Every structure is written in C-alpha cells, then in structure tokens.
C-alpha cells in the first residue's frame, strides 16, 4: 500500500457462530410481568388441533448478554457510512443525521397506532401533510402521495397512475397504448414496474454521448402505441438529459406521459425541478436524497409526485387540510377519490422515514438544500477530474452528482472492475457501484455525495490511482483482493447451485 493512505478499519474481529449454534437449553433473555388475570385452561380457549405441537423446537434460547455480544460482533464485519466514504453510484449514501433518528423516536409519534381516529392523531397527519407540501415545491409537481414504501414501489405507483389516466382519457382505445419506453441505461426496477402495470417494454438507445437518442425516441413514438417514457434524470451515467424538454414534448405529442425516476434527485434539489421540465410523474427516494438510513437494505420510502392533472389518480387515502382550530391547522383523511388507482400499502407508508425526511428538510432550510446539491455535484466533479489520468472515462460531458469510469485500461493486464472494487476494500473504502449501468462495459459508477470532505476525496483518488498502478505492476495483488477482511471472496456460483437458505440442526 502506498504511503499516506490509511486504512479506516481492518474488518477483522472474532468469529461469531449463528445464534442457533450458540443456543443453550434453559437460557433466558427476557422477563415479563406475571400474568395478572385469572387463567383459563388453554384447551377451553383454543381447540387442541389449532395449537402448536412442536414446542418451537430449534428457536434460540440465549441470555441478553449473548444477544448483545452476538450482534455487536457481527456489526464489526459491516462497512457503514459512519466509517467513511460509501461511493455507491445511484445509491446516494449520505450522512444519516442522529437528530433525524431522535425525531423518529419521539414517543408521541412512535406510539401512535395507524388506526387511530383522525381527531387523536392530528400531529401525525400534519407531518405527512407538511412533507407533501415541501416535496411538491422541490419537484414542482403538486400532487404527492407518501404511501409507497420504496423507490420501486413509488415507480409502480407512478406507472399505475399513468395507466389509469390513459384508461380514463382514451377509454377502450387505451388498450392499444400499452408500450412503455425505457432507456437501455435504466435501473432494472423500471421495466419490472412497467410489467406489473400491464405494459410491455421497448428499449431506447443511448447516444455515444450517453444521452437519450432523440431520433430513436421519435421513431418509437411514431406508431401511436406509446403509453409513456420512464427516464432517469440525471441519467444513470450521471449526465443531465439536456434535451429533457424536447423529450417530454415528443412523448406528449405522441399521446404518452413522462415518468421520471427520481433516484438521482440529489443532483437537482434547489437547482431545477422536474415539474418545470415537462415531467408528469416522479418518485423520490427519501432514503437517498433526503438522508433516511438505508439500514442494510431498507426501509426505504418512495413518495410519488405528479401534476395537478394526475392528482385524482393518487393512492387513497389522501390527507387534506380542512380548517384551523386553536391556532393549528386540522387534517382529515379523504377516501372519496373515485379515480384513484387504489391503495398500494396498508396504513400510510413508511411513516418513520417521513419524520426523518421532514427533519432533514427543516434542518437544511431552503438554502442548505441547495448547498447540499452543489457540494454533492462538486465532489463528483472533483473525483472525475482526479481519476481521468488513470481510468477510462467513457463520456466526455461533465457529470453531475456521479461519474462513470471503466476498467478498459486495467483489463489489458487482466484486472477487471470487480478486482478493482475488491482491492478498494483493502484501502478502507466501500467500493463504488460496479457493472451498472449495463450499457457500459466494466462500469464503475462513483457517487461521493456531499457528505465527504476534501481529505477523504483525495485519499480515495490516491487509492484508486494506487490500484491502477498495482494493476500494472502487481496484478496478482489486485486479483486476489481483498486481503484484509474476515472472509475472502465467497463462491457465489456454488451458493446458487445448491442454495442453503436457512440453518438446520
């Protein structure tokens, strides 16, 4: 390893078995108050054939100390944002503020039951309403539902809204309009969500500049069966679709609607608004742009924002402001939305994430939101500038919040993107997103976010350059990486051939 590059963590810690392997009969990790009502024979309450007869055999029996050590030891095998830069492109791994965590745990919110009558949950409804208002302003799209639980869920909601709108507008004729256009650079969730809404997918090519091919778009729009376009902007190459207005016009003229995947909104907040570009509906990821924690794979929250015209189609119930009482606004739930696509989730969505996102917006203030966007884009540009000397950068245009490089130069020595990513672990960084977008061979998509300081960016650039050098001088070192983790590269092919998906005695 080169001088001046310090590892953040060694990733090495004690072995820890599965909890089932640690379990000892008779250990107890809890205590409940004694039962304080008269006990009836269980058989009088529940017929014996409805009762369990396996005595929960195999479930763990451990003490509280066992549980704490078990999880704390396992936790040390994880990389996390709080350890350092986590430059996964398209994932927006920014700082998860502790203040937001505190807000989400305020007992007056954490203890509210979702079936509480409106008059006893006004504060909870107010949070939803206010966040909706702010997201409407940020996106320039006035209709907002916070019900979807994640990005893909918000996508599904948005596409179902398009479908419902077309069915209402065109009646029977809408059955001829069942094609969703999706660029070849899109997230895999896009076609999967389109499919769920009964659309077939046609793929739009990207140009050599990395932007949507307008000619191809026009060609695909010429036949009258296009329901809409799903576009990520900035796209998954980190480039702003500068023809976005024209793109929206082409789709609208063909009778379709434009859905924007808002995964990359961290490049736009406070700078430009999808609603002003001609976009009809968008989803946001509160767990990306608005800093709610990713939690090792969720929970997310995927609000869906749309034009006034599409608002009647949003999921039910809607939260509406009715009046003022004692100096405070009052809210109620509106179920009477006959055009709605229906409910997409029980209750109101991932409410705890809404509290955190509202806290994020209020902590930043309007100027802070813009400042975060500027800092995020600056960091990505700084990395783009710092790595161009050593890595192939397939597109010339300046990137926004993320930048894509490839392994083209290193692969001549047999070192590929996967190897570079694994070697980066030895330098104390989480790797970037690899092999996505699919249209770039050996893609490395790097998104630093605003939560990284200059020293760490310099360290990252130095680490990447050092790996480029190692690929030339000592490729074996890179090919066998990582060298510092608790386990080495795991045989994923063998794991998929004979899957072991649970512990068994």
């Amino acid at each position: 390893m080169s001088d001046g590059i310090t590892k953040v963590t060694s990733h090495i810690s004690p072995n820890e078995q599965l909890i089932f392997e640690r379990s000892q009969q008779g250990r107890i990790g809890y205590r409940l108050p004694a039962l304080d009502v008269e006990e009836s024979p269980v058989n009088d309450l529940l017929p014996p054939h409805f009762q369990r007869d396996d005595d929960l055999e195999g479930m763990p029996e451990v003490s509280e100390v066992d549980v704490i050590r078990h999880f704390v030891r396992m936790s040390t095998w994880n990389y996390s944002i709080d350890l350092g830069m986590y430059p996964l492109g398209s994932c927006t791994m920014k700082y998860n503020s502790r203040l937001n965590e505190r807000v989400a745990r305020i007992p007056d919110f954490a203890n509210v039951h979702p079936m509480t009558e409106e008059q006893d949950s006004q504060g909870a409804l107010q949070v939803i309403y206010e966040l909706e208002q702010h997201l409407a302003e940020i996106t320039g799209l006035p209709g907002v539902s916070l019900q979807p639980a994640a990005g893909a869920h918000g996508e599904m909601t948005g596409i179902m809204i398009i479908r419902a709108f077309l069915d209402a507008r065109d009646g029977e004729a809408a059955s001829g309009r069942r094609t969703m256009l999706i660029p070849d650079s899109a997230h895999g969730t896009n076609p999967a969500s389109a499919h769920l809404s009964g659309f077939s997918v046609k793929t739009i090519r990207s140009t050599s500049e990395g932007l949507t091919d307008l000619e191809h778009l026009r060609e695909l729009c010429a036949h009258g069966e296009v329901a809409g376009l799903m576009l990520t902007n900035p796209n998954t190459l980190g480039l702003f679709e500068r023809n976005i207005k024209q793109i929206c016009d082409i789709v609208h003229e063909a009778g379709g609607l434009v859905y924007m995947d808002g995964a990359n909104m961290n490049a736009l907040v406070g700078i430009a608004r999808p609603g002003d570009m001609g976009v009809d509906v968008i989803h946001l990821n509160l767990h990306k742009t608005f800093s709610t924690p990713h939690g090792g794979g969720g929970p997310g929250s995927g609000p869906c924002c749309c034009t006034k015209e599409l608002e009647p189609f949003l999921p039910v119930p809607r939260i509406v402001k009715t009046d003022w009482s004692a100096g405070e606004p009052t809210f109620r739930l509106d179920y009477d939305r006959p055009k709605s696509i229906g409910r997409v989730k029980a209750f109101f969505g991932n409410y705890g994430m809404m509290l955190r996102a509202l806290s994020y917006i209020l902590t930043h203030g309007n100027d802070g939101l813009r400042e975060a966007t500027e800092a995020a884009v600056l960091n990505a540009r700084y990395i783009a500038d710092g790595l161009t000397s050593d890595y192939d950068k397939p597109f010339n245009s300046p990137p926004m919040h993320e930048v894509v490089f490839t392994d083209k130069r290193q692969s001549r020595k047999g070192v590929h993107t996967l190897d570079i990513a694994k070697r980066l672990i030895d330098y104390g960084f989480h790797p970037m997103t690899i092999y996505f977008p699919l249209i770039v061979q050996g893609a490395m998509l790097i998104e630093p976010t605003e939560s990284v300081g200059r020293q760490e960016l310099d360290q990252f650039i130095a680490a990447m350059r050092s790996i480029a050098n190692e690929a030339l001088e000592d490729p074996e070192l890179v090919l066998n990486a990582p060298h510092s983790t608790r386990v080495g590269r795991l045989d994923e092919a063998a794991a998929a051939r004979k899957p072991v998906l649970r512990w068994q005695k």
Partner: protein
Amino acid sequence: MRYIPNSPEERKEMLEAIGLKSAEDLFDSIPQDLLLKRALNTPAALSEIELLSRFERMGRRNAAARRPSFLGGGAYAHYIPTIVDHILSRSEFFTAYTPYQPEISQGTLQTIFEFQTLVCQLTGMDLANASMYDGSTGLAEAVLMAERVTRRSKVIASSAVHPQYLEVVKTYVQHAGIDLELAAFDNDTGQSAAGLANAVDDQTAAIVVQSPNFFGCVEDVAALAEAAHAKGALLVVCLTEAMSLGLLKSPGACGADIVVAEGQSFGVPLSFGGPYVGLFATRDKYARQIPGRLVGEAYDKHGRRGFVLTLATREQHIRREKATSNICTNEGLIALAATVYLETMGRRGIQEVAHQCLQKAAYAARRIASIKGFSLPFSGPRFNEFVVRGPLDAGELLARLGKDKSIEGGIPLWRYFSDRPNDFLVCVTEINSRAEIDALVEGLSEVSNR
C-alpha cells in the same frame, strides 16, 4: 450546513482546482430556462433546539399516543426489550447499504440468514426471503406468485382478510389478468373456511385466508389446505398478528404453500403504520419463484463460511421485466429488529407472550360481554382480538371513551363493514395490565349509559 464537511473556502479551492469559477458552473449542462432562478419556497433552516421543539409540539397533537390502547387490526403494541433499539442504532447496521459486497457486509448478511431461519421456524415453512415492505404488499406478491406457479388466474380470498390488505391486493392484481373473488365469512362464527372451501375449483390458483382473521377468529387452515390441494390450488396464509405463531399451529404444519405475515409485532414500534416488515415464506420447490432477496451460505477459498445474496436471477436487476417482482430495497433494518427481538425473547419468551395475549384477551372478552347491552357477535376461537357489539354507534361510543376516559378502546368496523355500525374490534396484549382492562370495561359501561 453542518452536515457538509467542506467549508465554503475549501469548496472554492476545489472549484478552482477543476477549472471552474463558481458553483453555478457545476450546472452548465442544465439549459438556462430550466434552472430554478429563485430560492425554494421551503422553510429556513432550524437549529436542533428549534427543530425538536417544533416536532414535540406537533407530537402533542397526537392525543392517542399517551393513552392506554386496545387497538390492533394489523398493528400491535407489544413489549419491546430495550436492547432492540440499541442494536438497531449501531452505525454499522443502520448506516450500511444493501449487502452487495459480501466481504464487508457479513454482519448484515448473517443477520438476514438468521432472520430467514427464524421465519421458517415460526411459520413451519422451508424457506423465507429477506423481507417484504409489509404484510399487505407481501400478500399481494403471494397472489402474483400463486398465479406464476399454477398458471391459473382465479384467486379466492376470504372477506375476513384485513380490508386494507384486500385493497392492496386489488391494486396489485388489477393489470395482472387475475380474477379476484371474495368468499363470505360466517356471520355466527366469524370464520370463512367453509365458504372458501366451497368456492375452490380447478381454475383456482390460490385460496387466500388470514388466520387469526381480521375479526380475530382462528380459521381451520388445515381443512383449507386439503380443499385447495384437492383442486390443484395453492393455499396462501396471511397473518397480521405474527405473535399468534407462538401458540397456534404453524401454517406450514397445516399444509400452507405460501405464508405471509406482518412482522411488526416482533420488536417494531407502532409509528403510525410504518416502517414495518413483511415476512414471506414458501416451500423449497418454489425457491425460484419467490419474490425479493435471499441470503444463502457460501464459502471462500480457505473454506471459511460466509453469507451472500443468492438466486439473484429471479430479481429485477438481472431479469428486468421478467423478474419475479419489482422489489429492490426491502425492510432490512426492521428485519434486524425482528431478529433481535425473536432472539432476545427466544423460544420461551415468544410462547409466554402468546400465552399472556390469549389469557388477557379472554379475560377482557368475558368482562366486556358481561356489560349490559354488550355482546360478542362471533363465536369462533380467538387469539388476542375480538369483535364487540355495543348498544350504540361504535364511532360515537369510542369517541366518548377517548374524550371522557382517555382510553383508545378499539377500531370501529363501519368504515369496512357498513352493516356493522355498532361493532368494534378490541385487541389485548401482554402490555395491557388488568387495571387497564378493568378501566376499559368500566369506561364502556359508563359512556354507553349516558
């Protein structure tokens, strides 16, 4: 902004280092007419002190949060051991991403493997995924999966499934060519098994039953499995109260093919309905049809055991429109909460909680049924929820109880069952003391007598 490490001076230096003059230049690729040339019309920044006091003020408008509560209906107030939130709050868990790089994600991966195992043990099934958004979307995915497995398009669901879950299923299947039929429940028992068994035919992809159902009544799952399998259909069993698995025969042991459950009861706060966690389990033979992420065992070249995301060829990032689901982000951290909860309570704790729920609910039901003018309309066996019929409109009765006695007494059923204006759903768990139950009984008696 205190969350942005670089100072304005540093940012200026960085701009110069890459040959730009100002922050505006960073956005050169956005056409001028698309730039927002004004400040966002969102509030100005608040300090930590101001922010907390603002949220606390809004929180005080949630009168229900501090009251003794008997609300269930898909979200349950159970005891949560203190260590659950401590472990969730470890940076290494809550600030990590999806475990795409297994060498530095073993903490998350091993946890999910344990979660999958626990879900299998509780449900009596062969395999479980890494989680769904919640019980309702899990149920919708189960219906879609049943259609894929059987290539049949008719699905018969019990009308005693949680009404919001049924609404979600309707939304999901509306463009999938699935014909969703509802089978009635029995007005005396509150159970729906007989109606479901009668409706199944050889066009049926699946029977969908919830047990305990929305009314709290336990269904005869084993009989339904037999009825479904006799016609080549699958049995999908749904639970909103997963704690009942501590006591009730597992759906797997009854012959279910797919089991979905809301896992909120396992260590997750009510939090106005989310984030919760969907449990999804099935049989080995359907491993390649299951939606969502799976974690499996794997070994490195030195033979060390680790865990990886596996069977990804079912998923959207590989299969795109042919994927088994569009789900990507799931509920990882909430699955961790459930895992910590289940391991802390352990085998005996889950049994004891379930036992206390059963006994306390039975006590409450007996007492309420003895109040003049009150009755229990359904006779089916129950776990910790039951329907009460009062002498007046349930919405009015419960509003009085809240206002006069500061008790959240139950969920009125009129919104979902307009022919039941006086009925409401009461839930009792281990956290409701006898004194609370007695206060509920006295309160109901008093406010109904006015």
